[in-house]
């Protein structure tokens, strides 16, 4: 494998890890506040559709992004009403949201565009286009560093850089602000937060609103950043890989970045090479590569390699006594 191939694989790893990263951080906010969210997939899908559709109609990727965020937050609101206000089962609500998004995007898509649930292909300003960072052209011909800067670091869409910035921002919000402290507290010990006179309900709604926002960006990236239009079921399980990454990262922002890059890398390798020869082991089939994120997560969950402990009050509706 030559240097160019390595750079190409790493470049596509970055691109593929972005939706995972955004959805993973979305789940982080929600689950840290004690609301399990297996509806990341559905929210991303709804946003991907809304962004693609609005970007096509208006020709503006930015308006598309806003529409995507709106769609995703709307589903978050349903999750909130079900699991916070009516104290319903958060997991069942998540399952319902995934189906709702899957059904509605296909229905509305077919009704609007009559292309089997897809949006028409997007181009020009209807997409987030690649940004060339300063000096990239100039440094392009430098050995090694020039290539890394030009191919790997420069030349992504705005949303990629935004996603990377959200990682330290998430860390800062959660661990350095009062809001973050309260958010983590309602996920660990809501009764204590309640006694100190802070509304558990408001805090949890705030958390899932942020979750909706981030899933919205993730979905917009899928249809207007990395892709050029919405395709039916285009999230294809990414929301669940993000969930896996969240567990893999033990609900921490910076490890979440590494987990998503790892899972993105696995996907990129799977796309680039149909099968991989490992000396002494033999051929690793493509399907094993695809299943690897899930297998790794189960191993982590099993606690054989450092135990993953979720927030203590996760999944439990809060009952004021």
């Amino acid at each position: 494998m030559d240097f160019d191939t390595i750079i190409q694989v790493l470049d596509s790893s970055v691109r593929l890890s972005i939706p995972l990263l955004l959805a993973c951080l979305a789940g982080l906010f929600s689950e840290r506040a004690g609301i399990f969210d297996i509806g990341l997939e559905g929210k991303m899908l709804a946003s991907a559709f809304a962004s693609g559709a609005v970007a096509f109609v208006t020709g503006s990727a930015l308006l598309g992004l806003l529409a995507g965020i709106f769609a995703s937050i709307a589903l978050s609101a349903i999750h909130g009403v079900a699991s916070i206000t009516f104290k319903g089962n958060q997991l069942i609500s998540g399952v319902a949201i995934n189906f709702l998004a899957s059904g509605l995007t296909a229905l509305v898509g077919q009704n609007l565009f009559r292309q089997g649930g897809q949006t028409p292909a997007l181009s020009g300003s209807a997409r987030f286009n690649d940004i060339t960072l300063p000096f990239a052209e100039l440094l392009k011909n430098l050995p090694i560093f020039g290539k890394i800067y030009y191919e790997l670091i420069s030349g992504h869409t705005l949303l990629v850089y935004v996603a990377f910035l959200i990682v330290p921002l998430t860390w800062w919000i959660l661990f350095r602000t009062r809001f973050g402290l309260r958010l983590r507290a309602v996920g660990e010990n809501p009764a204590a937060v309640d006694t100190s006179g802070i509304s558990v309900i408001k805090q949890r709604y705030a958390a899932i609103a942020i979750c909706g926002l981030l899933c919205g960006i993730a979905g917009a990236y899928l249809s207007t950043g990395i892709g050029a239009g919405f395709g039916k079921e285009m999230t294809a399980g990414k929301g669940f890989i993000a969930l896996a990454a969240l567990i893999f990262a033990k609900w921490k922002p910076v490890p979440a970045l590494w987990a998503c890059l790892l899972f993105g890398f696995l996907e990129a390798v799977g796309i680039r090479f149909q099968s991989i020869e490992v000396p002494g082991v033999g051929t690793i089939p493509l399907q094993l590569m695809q299943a690897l994120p899930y297998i790794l997560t189960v191993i982590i969950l099993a606690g054989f390699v450092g135990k993953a402990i979720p927030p203590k009050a996760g999944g439990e509706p809060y009952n004021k006594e």
Partner: protein
Amino acid sequence: MTKLPSWIDILLIPLINLIIALFLSALVVLYIGENPLNALSIMIKGAIGSSYGWGYTLYYATNFIFTGLAVSVAFHARMFNIGGEGQATLGGLGVALVCLMFPWPHWSIALPVAIIGGALFGAAWAAIPAYLQAKRGSHIVITTIMFNFMASALLVYLLVNVLKVPGSMAPETGRFVEGARLPTGHDMLGWVGIKFSKSPPVNISFLIAVLSSFAVWFLIWKTKLGYEIRAFGHSESAAKYAGISPVKIIMIAMLISGALSGLMGINSVMGESERLVLDSVQGAGFIGIAVALMGRSHPLGVFLAAILFGILYQGGAELAMWTKIPRELIVVIQALVILLTGALDNMIRIPIERLYFKMVRANA
């Protein structure tokens, strides 16, 4: 406060939930520009208006009875088994391997072995998440989701690399032998002299599904094990105090759950496609969640909810054929049913409870 009478709990509330779900779906139909009442009549006529329609409705219902029972048994032990999809995929594999390994002379010999194969493979796929939940406390919802994806990757690998007919492009096994062909609704009703459409895939598995419903009812309400499962589901600490082993209950409930999902293979793989194809489950594992919620985890409720979803599936296919309404409408209805009966249950239940007790007091 006393409890609601059971007819409100198991009949009225699910009915109200269903009506709300259908009402919201009607809004979607209006948005598409079709008449909701017209759509409903096409659905009902298409699903139960002919023996052809019934044949498909009951075929789908058979799948949903198996997966619905699977989710219910796990629910009784307060386990949310979201892995029905993967367990049914593996069950289908088990059924296919049984059908392929031997030149079966007659279905009546092949079927019992296929039942064992499907149940064993389905249970095996539930065993690891169950063990990890019981012994290591790994959340069963997350592990079963992961196992769904692993199952689909495993099946693709096996069909593409191992089980495919040599020289063929299609990722599917060869057709099963004639002796593994299950009698269809047409065959069985023909034995007693009743005419039934020849084409629908409903087959003897429907009767196995009905028997399974009885078996689950008997297990949960008439045996010591069933009592222990329910006790554990009500209160883990109380059950522990009564000497019930959590590890044992979690393992047994999940293995039964996986086996029931796996049994779906006799209907879809052995009964319908008569070969193993990619995606033989087609989401039935997830529909089992809706069916179990709507049926309140009771086998009779599951049976009725499965028939209802069978009608929706067959009716939805007819809708897609005759109107502008895409098949995905069923997915929306399914989502609304899960949301209303599962997550938003309190939204309906609390006002009805208030109303009921007000009326009781007024009459007293």
